Every structure is written in C-alpha cells, then in structure tokens.
C-alpha cells in the first residue's frame, strides 16, 4: 500500500505540491490526472525518494520513506519498478543489459539464468526475445517503452509499479498497445501501481481509482465513476473535451481489488 499524508513540496520557494493526501490500496492501480505542471510526475519522484518533501509523510507498505537514509531507500527502491517518461533506457547498454540492470546491480545471477530472465520478460511485454542484443536507439519509440516496462518488471519482482506518462510521444497505435499491456499486467499481476498521465481515455482504461491534481493541490480522489459524476468545476472543465471518451470508458471501469464492482455510468 502507498500513502501520501499532507505532503508539501517546493522548489526554490515555489510550491509544487500542497497538502497532498491520498492512498493507493494494495493491488490497486491509481491514475493521477492533471494538466501539465500540476505536480503529477513530482509525486512519483517523491515516492522514489528522488526528492524529499518539505512536510508530510509518504508511506510504502507502512514504512515512512521521507526520513529514511539513502542506504535504506535503496533497499525500498528494489521493491518498486519505474517506467520513466520517454523510457529513459540506458543508451550505452543493450536491450538485454537494460532489462537485467537491477539484477546485475544487486545479485550475482549466473549469465544463463540472467539471459533466460531477460528473454522471458521481453516476451511478457510482447517483444521478440531476439532483440536482446540490440541497442535502444535501434528500436521504435513503442518498443523502447516496452523494454522500459520489462526493465521495471525484472527489477527483483517489484510489488509496486510506477508509470510516468508511459504513452506520451507515441503514435496512437503504439500508445494503445502500451495501455493494453498495462491493463493486462494490472489484471494478471495485481501489483500496486500508480500511473501518471494527461490522456483521459488511457486513464479510464487503466484506473481502479483516480486522483486529479491542479496547481499542486489534490482536487479529486475517488473511482472513475465518481470522477465522471463529479460537479467540481475544474474537473468538468478539464474533462469537457473528452466527455465522449469518459462516457465510453466508464462503461468498462474496473473495481478496486476486494471491493464491489462499481456501477457503470448510465
């Protein structure tokens, strides 16, 4: 479980996040929506300990990470897989070395076992395992994003997955394939996940719960159906251009694991 409690964060005195409080239940996928610059990606950076909040608590499986030493944080990060915006693959390494990065860094896994793990993870994300020796710049944007997902999954079998705008910059077909893959992983693996996006259709497709940020403040937290029904003026304005997509998507919203399935929007 992930929990943000009254988190404030600023850069050079400029507030980025203000009094953010929300929970991501065990096994659920929460999508954080919001316009550019609203602090969505910052929440993921704080969760990884790449930045420290000015105030508040961030808990991962009941451990407060905000005051943890860097050494202890490194251990916590091994339970978290992250898919960065644009993939952030290490361009001096092959696809195989990228996927196996965390295993090579932390474990002395035999080469044959390592290759088997890499191949199986490439297959899991729908890529040809023979791409193992290619360099990232020899792959398309969509394939790079899949490798990034494989790398996140291979990281010592994480129980938390974070996606930072995983479809940004991709063509519509590749973007849809990535979203379908995230949905498939959600249903198959039941890992606690947070996806940051400004793509409304993707958000409704993936989310068990949703959070909306605006100018660093949390303006909504609830289910996709709740979001579609809310009277919050900012959200109505934000969703207005996508009303059709919202209506279509809320027909197939999924329940938070362990809770009754929500009623679809009429």
């Amino acid at each position: 479980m992930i929990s943000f409690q009254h988190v404030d964060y600023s850069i050079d005195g400029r507030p980025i996040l203000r009094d953010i409080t929300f929970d991501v239940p065990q096994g659920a996928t929460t999508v954080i929506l919001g316009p550019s610059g609203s602090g969505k990606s910052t929440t993921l950076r704080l969760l990884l300990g790449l930045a420290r909040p000015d105030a508040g608590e961030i808990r991962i499986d009941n451990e407060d990470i905000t005051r943890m030493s860097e050494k202890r944080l490194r251990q916590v990060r091994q339970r978290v897989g992250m898919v960065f915006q644009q993939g952030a693959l290490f361009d001096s390494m092959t696809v195989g070395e990228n996927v196996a990065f965390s295993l090579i860094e932390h474990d002395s896994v035999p080469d044959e076992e390592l290759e088997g793990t890499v191949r199986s993870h490439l297959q899991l994300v729908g890529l040809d395992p023979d791409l193992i020796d290619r360099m990232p710049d020899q792959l398309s944007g969509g394939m790079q994003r899949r490798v990034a997902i494989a790398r996140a999954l291979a990281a010592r079998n994480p129980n938390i997955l974070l996606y930072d705008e995983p479809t940004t910059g991709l063509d519509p077909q590749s973007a849809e394939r990535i979203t379908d893959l995230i949905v498939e992983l959600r249903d198959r693996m039941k890992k606690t996940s947070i996806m940051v996006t400004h793509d409304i259709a993707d958000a409704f497709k993936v989310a068990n719960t949703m959070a909306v940020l605006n100018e660093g403040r949390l303006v909504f937290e609830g289910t996709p159906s709740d979001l579609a029904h809310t009277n919050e003026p900012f959200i109505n304005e934000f969703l207005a251009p996508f009303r059709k997509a919202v209506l279509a998507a809320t027909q197939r919203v999924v329940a938070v694991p362990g809770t009754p399935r929500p009623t679809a929007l009429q």
Partner: protein
Amino acid sequence: MNLIAAIVERLRRMVEVVQDFVLFAWEAIRATFTPPYYGREFLSQLHFALVGSLLIVVVSAAVAGQALAIQLVRELANTGAKSQLGHFMVISVVRALGPVLTGMVVASRMSAGITAELGAMRSSDQLDALIAFGSNPMKRLVVPRVAALLIALPVLVIIGDALAVVGGGFVGLQYHLPVESYYSGVLKYLTPKNVMVGMIKPFVFAVMIATVACWRGFRSAGGAKGVGVSTTESVVISSVGILVADGVCTRLVFRILGW
C-alpha cells in the same frame, strides 16, 4: 540600494555554487573508497581518455615543443649559449609548459565529452533511472571517470613532454647544435626533482577536470540548451582552473619544498 541587493544576491549564489561543488566533490571522494567498483566502466573511460586523447596530445606537444625551441635557440645563440638548449627545454617543458599544455588539451576534450554525456543522461532521466533501479551514480559514473583520468593524464603528460623535448632536439639540429650536446643537457637536467615538480600537476589537474565535468553534467538542466550551457561552463572552469592550479602548485613547490 538595488545595486547593493543585486551584488549581495550574486555573492550568495556564488557561495551556493561553490558549496554545491565542494559537497559534490566530497561525495565523490567518499564513493571512491567503498565498493562496488565498476571495472568495465573504468576501462571504457580509460580508453576514451588515453587512446582518444593521444593524437591531439602528440600533435600539440610536438608543435608547441618546436615553437618553444625556436624561440629559445635564437635567444641562446645571440648570447653564445646555444648548447644550453637542452637544459632550457627540460626546465620549460617538464617543469612548466608540458603539464599545462597537455592538461588544457585533455581538459577541452574530456570536459566537453563527460559533461555532454552526463548532461544528456540527466535530461533523458537516465540519472534518475540509475537511482530508481538501486544504483549509485557517484560510484557508477563519477568514480570511474576520475580514476581513468588520474591514470590517463600523467601518462599523456609524459608522452607530450617527451615529444616536445625530442622536437626541441630537431630544432637544435636545424641550428647546427649537435645531438650529443642537446641530449647531454637534457639528461643533466632531467633530475628526479624536476620530473616530480612537473608530475605533481597532472594528478591535480585530472581530479579537477573530471570532478568539474561530472558536476556540471549532473547539474545540467533545461534540455539541449542546458546541456550546451553546462558543457561550455565545464570547459571554461577546467581551463581557467588548470592555469590557477598550475600557479598554486608552482608556488607551493617553491615555498614548501624549495624546488
């Protein structure tokens, strides 16, 4: 009033920048003495620094050595002391010019290369990805680069010095100075003291070039433009830093060791 406030603000920022560099360098030093060590990264950086810089060091040292020898031999000939060319070449090249010249040539290449690479990694989130996947960028990226340059730069200085001195010998030949006379002067003044004075500097320069380049790369912000700005800053700081460090080293050696 506004001018005073602006000056104070500028000074405050400068102190912050210096403090940031000192903390970065301290973290790099700490990372050097604890495992894990990345042998493959070190060898790849050593190849980049040593083999990659060899040609420009060879060319610049040979040309600069000959230019220096031409100036010296003409003056010495006027005073009837042409046979002292070997002596003057060793003192000028080995103690002073060689390390600075090679340091500047290597600094321009390595500073730009390291800062641009790490800056690109910063702007494409690769540095954050390293941390997210449990690695320590200080150990993985900074330590191998500092260690590689600590080995490569002294070796390049030795090669550059040797070529400059040999180049001086060719100039001496053109001015009818016998080879034996030139090299007896060279060998007479190529003393352990003179060599050590010259060889302290490349170690200082290497740490400075690599640490400054990594620091500017890590602090790069603002996409391609930001990487460009960081790269320029890195080259400028390293180049000026080499001249300042050379002055400081020379004074310290004279004052403390009396050499």
